[in-house]
């Protein structure tokens, strides 16, 4: 069964088209990586998938239902880039945040035993039970992102959507965070991950969607590296921006950034093959 289904979806902010004619399906149990250059509409596509925004054209379905009418909130969990400002300032504990995962089921009234149990299990599962009474603001970035994953686990969500969750993390906590996502995916959770680091996505995700307004590639992760989709998607930006000197200059920086992860990817896959030996 498909978790998310996009059919010829288009979306624009005012007159500026951000998503143009994208169709793709995310099967249940899939780990989809969404990649593309800055401003390519990755995050917008993610929020369209979750029904947070409605497409100007085309249709989005969540678990076979129209996305904006979909009402089983507990089946969907969302982890943002970093809610640092609120998370740092607001006096709220890890357990209080993880409990939010149960809110779609128990928005009012008392928490049931099942609610309490799900919260404690989720805390254990991502190994933050010992931090449960700490303030979220006092945690490291990596611990904090685990809290949000625990919230998704407490919800017993079927679909976990993450928007560049590891931007603020160091390499080690990023690795262990993606290990955790891999485990969850193996246990059956559908994951859609927006990620700027192409190396990470191609090694972790089962499928890749590469976009820049339009879909440039959608297929198995191991086929992505061999395709020329990456160059095409990043190149598309270059053509659009080339007529403006400042932007073009700006873009070279992005371009460089875009290549780095590709090298990274080689390094990571080399590591993986060593491990396999």
């Amino acid at each position, binding site marked *: 069964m498909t978790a998310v289904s996009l059919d010829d979806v288009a979306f624009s902010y005012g007159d500026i088209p951000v998503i143009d004619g994208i169709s793709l399906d995310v099967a249940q149990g899939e780990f989809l990586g969404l990649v593309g250059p800055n401003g390519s509409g990755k995050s917008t596509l993610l*929020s369209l998938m*979750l029904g*947070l925004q409605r497409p100007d054209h085309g249709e989005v379905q969540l678990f076979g239902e129209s996305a904006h009418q*979909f*009402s*089983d*909130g*507990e089946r*969907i*969990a*969302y*982890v*943002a880039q970093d*809610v640092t400002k*609120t*998370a740092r*300032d*607001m*006096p*709220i*504990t890890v*357990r*209080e*945040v993880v409990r*939010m995962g149960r*809110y*779609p089921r*128990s*928005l*009012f009234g008392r928490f049931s035993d099942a609610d309490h149990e799900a919260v404690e299990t989720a805390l254990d599962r991502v190994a933050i039970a010992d931090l449960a*009474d700490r*303030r979220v603001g006092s945690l490291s970035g990596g611990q904090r992102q685990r809290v*949000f994953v625990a*919230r998704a686990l407490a*919800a017993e969500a079927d679909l976990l*959507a993450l928007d560049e969750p590891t931007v603020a993390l160091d390499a080690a906590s990023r690795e262990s965070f993606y290990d955790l996502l891999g485990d969850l995916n193996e246990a059956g959770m559908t994951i859609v991950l927006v990620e700027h680091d192409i190396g990470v996505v191609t090694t972790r995700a089962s499928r890749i969607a590469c976009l820049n307004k339009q879909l440039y590639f959608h297929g198995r992760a191991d086929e992505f590296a061999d395709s020329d989709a990456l160059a095409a998607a990043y190149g598309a930006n270059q053509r659009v921006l080339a007529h403006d000197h400042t932007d073009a200059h700006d873009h070279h920086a992005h371009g460089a950034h875009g290549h780095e992860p590709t090298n990274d990817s080689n390094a990571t896959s080399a590591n993986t093959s060593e491990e396999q030996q």
Partner: protein
Amino acid sequence: MTGFDALTALAALPFSDLFAPLFVVNTISGLFDWFLRVVVDGVFSWVAAVTGLQFLSYPYMQRAYLSVFCIGIVGPLVGSFLVYRDLSMVGDTLAHTAFAGVAVALFLDATLALTVPPLVGALVVAVLAALVVQVLVEYTDARSDAALAMVLTGGFALGSVLISLTGGGISVGINQYLFGSLATVSRADVGLLVSMGLVVVVGVSVAYRPLLFVTFDETAARASRVHVRAVNTLLSILTAFVVVSAMRIMGVILVAALLVIPVVTVSRAGRSYKHSLWLGIFAGEIAGIAGVTLAYLYGLAAGGSIVLVAIGGFVAVQLGLRAR
């Protein structure tokens, strides 16, 4: 059931049942009178006798203390859901539009001899303004802070124009709404204030989880299908209730302080969100009670005293945390 059936059914009721709601209202206001006369007065007079602080036995001071007691609870309680979303100015905006409500009530009274209690006028207009702010932010391109500034100044402008229309005849009573006052809090005001306080406390208790979810992570809340718009509307309306109940004592201009200052004062000390709510209420109570006491003892403006005590508390807590 057709309309006719309904009419017959209504006619068949014993006459007294039609007035049943009236009896309920009478009973409640009777109970409240008893509460003020016996419980509040009893407690305060006892404290006055024990401490020798004579002013505690004056009914108007008792009403003032009862008012700040309510404000000290509901201000930080609602403010906690505003401050962390950078919505601190919502309180100020609604207070300034509530002033227009007061002006409308006084205007109707002066020109049409239509008696509308000023606080009721304030409540109606503040709730309307809360909804207007929502619409402005959602359906126009206005930035939320610009929308707030427009509604704030618009409300205050409407109030000042209405007052000038009456040829200055009603401006006598305006000062106490602008700057707050201890002496003019009537029994009916306190009644309205206590009931609005109850509404706010019940509202926050019932909607605690959606309020918290939206405050902490609005996008995740939307993804989890929490009705964020409904939660925002509820929060605005609760804020309108708070500013209107606090207006009599604090004054329109300063009323937002108790939504914000106690919350930021305890923000770093709270071990959890619930704990910080209790601490905020504690800080609000200290500021309110100390402020009213100082205002009485030295003949100061009540609202200003409360705000300065609250800010003093904020500074003290920050210094204390730094020293630790």
